């Protein structure tokens, strides 16, 4: 495992949270809740700027869900479960859905036979922009149907109860706000909630489309802008996140430079997500061809201390289930 090199994450453990860096995530969620609730109770705050900011922070709220479901933010297990409910309201879906859909299925790609519920192969329009727009319409239902199937056989002792609690909290609070002010809630709470939940699904397409999910190092696209990764809590570094699912998000930037950059095809490092989106979905009408990677490929790029994909998968599965308890 990599050593913690981030100053934010490596100092002595603070009292409430596991790492100091987690305060950034808590801050993001606090700002997001303010952006959601202010327009409901203060009609003067109803404007396009607030709506746009709420949509953006909703996406960040889903990023926090992702990180929190890999490694809980707080020392207290109970607080971690409560925090999941808080995050669920922001996304209008139970955050615990990430355990099966992301930690256990997406991290396996298609290795288990059937397609990942959020595989880029689920969309196939010729005009690439439509793939980006439509992707959540397919990945969303496949994810929630998959979660239901997983819950039917999972022996996880508390998943179903926690999933229901989060659903009740998210839909209950949203419903209560709608009862208070239907239109204000629909436009300034529900729209951002849906926007963020759908954008985090789109990230699967953005990060993996045209890459090779069977490869050890060339399965993901990375967005390496510093400012972008500060606000995104390092979620731009996706290759290392897949290869070391247990690594804390605050350590990903250094690990990306150390382990991924020397081994990965450089075309999968993108300096800017905005530039990539413009180039891939607006300026280019057609879906790009699948990348063909060099023959040297994975064998030459093996990292001796990195366990095999199957072993890493099993370790990540065990960690995901333990984190969910």
């Amino acid at each position, binding site marked *: 495992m990599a050593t913690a090199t981030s100053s934010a994450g490596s100092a002595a453990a603070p009292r409430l949270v596991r790492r100091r860096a987690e305060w950034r995530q808590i801050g993001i969620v606090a700002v997001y809740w303010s952006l959601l609730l202010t327009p409901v109770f203060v*009609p003067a705050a*109803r404007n*396009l700027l607030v*709506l746009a900011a709420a949509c953006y922070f909703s996406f960040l709220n889903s990023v926090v869900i992702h990180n929190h479901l890999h490694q809980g933010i707080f020392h207290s297990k109970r607080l971690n479960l409560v925090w999941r409910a808080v995050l669920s309201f922001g996304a209008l879906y139970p955050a615990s859905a990430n355990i099966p859909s992301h930690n256990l299925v997406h991290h396996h790609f298609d290795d*288990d*036979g*059937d397609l990942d519920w959020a595989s880029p192969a689920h*969309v*196939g*329009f010729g005009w690439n922009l*439509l793939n980006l*727009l*439509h992707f*959540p*319409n*397919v990945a*969303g*239902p*496949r994810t*929630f*149907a998959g979660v239901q*199937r997983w819950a*039917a*056989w*999972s*022996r996880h002792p508390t998943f179903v109860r926690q999933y229901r609690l989060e659903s009740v909290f998210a839909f209950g609070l949203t419903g209560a706000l709608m*009862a*208070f*002010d*239907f*239109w*204000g809630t*629909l*436009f*300034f709470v*529900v*729209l951002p909630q*849906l926007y963020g939940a759908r954008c985090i699904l789109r990230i699967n397409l953005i990060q993996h489309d045209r890459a090779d999910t069977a490869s050890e190092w060339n399965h993901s696209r990375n967005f390496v802008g510093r400012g972008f990764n500060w606000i995104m809590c390092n979620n731009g570094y996706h290759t290392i996140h897949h290869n070391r699912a247990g690594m804390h998000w605050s350590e990903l930037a250094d690990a990306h430079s150390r382990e991924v950059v020397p081994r990965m095809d450089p075309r999968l490092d993108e300096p800017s997500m905005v530039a990539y989106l413009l180039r891939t979905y607006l300026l280019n009408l057609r879906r790009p061809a699948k990348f063909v990677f060099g023959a040297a490929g994975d064998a030459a790029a093996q990292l001796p201390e990195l366990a095999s994909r199957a072993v890493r998968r099993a370790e990540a*599965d065990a960690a995901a289930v333990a984190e969910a308890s």
Partner: protein
Amino acid sequence: MWGADTQGLEVFAAIALGFLWIHTLLIAYAALLDRRGLASRLARAREAVVGTVVEAAGPEGVLARAEVDQVGRTKGDGVVHFADRAHRSVGWAGVLEVGGERHSLALEGAEVWPELDARERAAAPESAAQLESVLPQAKRAKGWRRTVAVDVGAVGSTVYYLPARGQEPAIVSALEPLGWLRTKRRAALLFVFAELAVAAGCTALALVPPAFGWVSMLGGAACLGFFLGVQPLGVALTDALRTPDRAYLRGRWG
């Protein structure tokens, strides 16, 4: 309360309706693409050859076999839930008799369309004892793995044969392909019309004057419900349009 302060909300209503319609049209377009994906098979199905199998080189005298690899898992409540891991078609050589004439078939690489009812029957447990016997393996993280196989074209049976055309492989089918394809394509078209009609109805309701009044509010709630509900329906349609060689089996024991 409820309607509270609605001044200046028109622009946000327009944005919300814009999102609704963009995604309604995308889902409709995706359904039409799924439907179009069956078009070439439909054209070929019109020229399908129907005949009796007189010779078959496969094991136990069959022309072809449709297989589904599955993994079954249980949480220990006596019910095993199956997930599909892979769908496979296996074809062999054989001879088909059509109107007194004999035609040689080479079905390597062909799509094999089984009767879906027959596949369900093949997937069912043989006995309660069989269910009991697999429970310990189904409880493990790896689950209990099995392959459900359905034979198509036993000697003496009737099959439908669609010869290969260009890049498209031959199809050998136990079910009548033309009727199946027509039904599926009709369902896709019906879905698109129904989807657009319901979206239009919800939109019209939301736009009933006075703006943001009670009826309009019901329309807004209907639009939200429609938006959330139409996406799984679109995916269900895509799955329903999967050809029988790739149709999901899934299922459960117990």
